[in-house]
């Protein structure tokens, strides 16, 4: 009976974590060390915990900014329409 090549407990609540563990253990794809991460990659990467947190916050920030810009633009369009009708 072939034994599983995966030898650690993998959290099953996220499919992404499963894929990452399989990549690491079966194919030897390892994360770059902190020395190799330079520039913007030092703060925004998918290997360190802080990097992942920053990526998530940046993505949410971009969406929030886009939504705010869209609603402000819609409000500006409504205001000239109401002033021209009166």
């Amino acid at each position, binding site marked *: 009976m072939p034994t599983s090549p995966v030898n650690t407990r993998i959290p099953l609540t996220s*499919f992404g*974590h499963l894929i*990452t563990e399989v990549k690491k253990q079966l194919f030897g794809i390892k*994360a770059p060390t902190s020395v190799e991460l330079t520039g913007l990659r030092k703060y925004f990467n998918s290997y360190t*915990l802080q990097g992942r*947190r920053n990526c998530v*916050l940046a993505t949410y920030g971009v969406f929030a900014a886009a939504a705010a810009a869209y609603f402000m633009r819609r409000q500006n369009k409504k205001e000239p329409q109401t002033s021209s009708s009166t």
Partner: protein
Amino acid sequence: MVLSFFDQFMSPSYLGIPLMALALILPWTLYPKPTSQWISNRVLTLQGWFINRFTQQLMLPLGRKGHKWALLLTSLMVFLITLNMLGLLPYTFTPTTQLSLNMGFAVPLWLATVLIGMRNQPTIALGHLLPEGTPTPLIPVLIIIETISLFIRPIALGVRLTANLTAGHLLIQLIATAAFVLAPLMPTVALLTATLLLLLTLLEVAVAMIQAYVFVLLLSLYLQENV
């Protein structure tokens, strides 16, 4: 009054008084209270053994901080399993077929796990939203996907329990009606249908227990990520 197959899922009321509260209190009356006697009777001993074993098994992957949830999760499990099993008796109402009840359990408990994670370890909680080793172009896409999957969790929890129990009860009623109608016309087919009904009832007993366990297990897994 013409009865439909969905009348069994209507919230019961008598003279305008809703009986849902009575249906929810009933499991509490069925479990004996532990006494101060040195050796308990068989029922109490079995009850204590089951509750201790279940709590031990559920709390195994959780750290000390997660042990605060032991009472809540174990009592939820006993409550759900009792409601589900009582609903399999004829002419009874199953409260867990109501989506409102199941969402009332799922949403606050899931939200509690998320808020605990954000409050106590915000970096780890936010880090969970991006799998490790994701290629750079896929980062925004995966963050959106993981956020959607996070918000789908309480809906899936509630709807899973509702759908499983509703489907089971509906199937039982359909096949029982079929056996009853076929009995004077085709007795052999009716006998086969009755056999199928017996097997389905056994399946529904298993589903009742498993779905309660799955609900509580998934909540403990979500807690494990955040505590």
